[in-house]
């Protein structure tokens, strides 16, 4: 299975994602934002970081990078595109996902472990996932997911929510919403469910020396589904 991780100026979780993908069997290539074409890929990942220093709006400048044309075409053709954290911000700015990411409700950067409840398993990312609640890690200042009333209706109608912030038992409530996201949304799909954006970092939950391993479960399952 081939994957590509795109490095934008200011991306800083690209190496972490490269390590995670390779650990679980992907043949990963690092792609420069200014390249014209994506290499042959089964999965394209936009990693976390601070592309363009979050100038103008998070992800806005990166979404206009030269490589993004190729990414848009890949996604339109059904290719799997995953955006993590800043990657998620780039996907919404590029129009591949609905909504927008705003400043965290409490106006502070937050770095901690959280729980998410998997909402939709009818897709390549979460099908057959052996757990319904994952412990993942967030590290962001602008993770507050927001969308218009029309968008939220469409999201509900098409079952586009991928992950909700929850407690350890899967209860979705305000107490477990770290950043004020509408409806506790932590991750979202496009209509066709081939593009996934999420704020939590699965690539930071793959090493028992550092953390829990729900990230490992996610990646193992993902590569199995793609095969």
């Amino acid at each position, binding site marked *: 299975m081939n994957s590509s991780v795109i490095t934008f100026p200011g991306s800083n979780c690209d190496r972490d994602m490269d390590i995670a993908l390779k650990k679980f069997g992907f043949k990963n290539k690092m792609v420069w934002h200014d390249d014209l074409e994506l290499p042959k890929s089964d999965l394209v990942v936009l990693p976390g970081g601070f592309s363009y220093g979050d100038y103008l709006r998070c992800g*806005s*400048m990166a979404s206009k990078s030269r490589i993004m044309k190729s990414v848009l075409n890949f996604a339109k053709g059904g290719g799997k595109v995953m955006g993590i954290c800043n990657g998620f911000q780039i996907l919404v700015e590029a129009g591949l996902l609905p909504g*927008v990411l705003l400043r965290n409700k409490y106006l502070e950067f937050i770095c901690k472990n959280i729980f998410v409840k998997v909402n939709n398993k009818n897709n390549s990312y979460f099908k057959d996932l052996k757990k319904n609640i994952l412990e993942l890690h967030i590290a962001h200042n602008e993770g507050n997911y927001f969308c*218009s009333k029309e*968008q939220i209706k469409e999201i509900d109608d098409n079952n586009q929510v991928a992950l909700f912030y929850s407690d350890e038992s899967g209860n979705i409530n305000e107490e477990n919403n770290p950043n004020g996201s509408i409806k506790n949304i932590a991750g979202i799909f496009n209509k066709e469910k081939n593009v996934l954006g999420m704020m939590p970092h699965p690539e930071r939950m793959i090493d028992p020396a550092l953390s829990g391993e729900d990230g490992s479960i996610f990646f193992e399952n993902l590569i199995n589904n793609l095969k």
Partner: protein
Amino acid sequence: MGFESINEVRQGKYFEIDTKENDKKKAEEKVEEMCKKLLANLVIENYNIIESR
């Protein structure tokens, strides 16, 4: 700070764009496009061209 007569405060962004376009209408059309494509995120922001000269 002692300012008690405030109802609401909103914050926005201000851009001054110097184009090579000499025709005012064409310049405004181009800037409209820029706003829609990048400068404003229409999910959360609206924009207004307040002056062109």
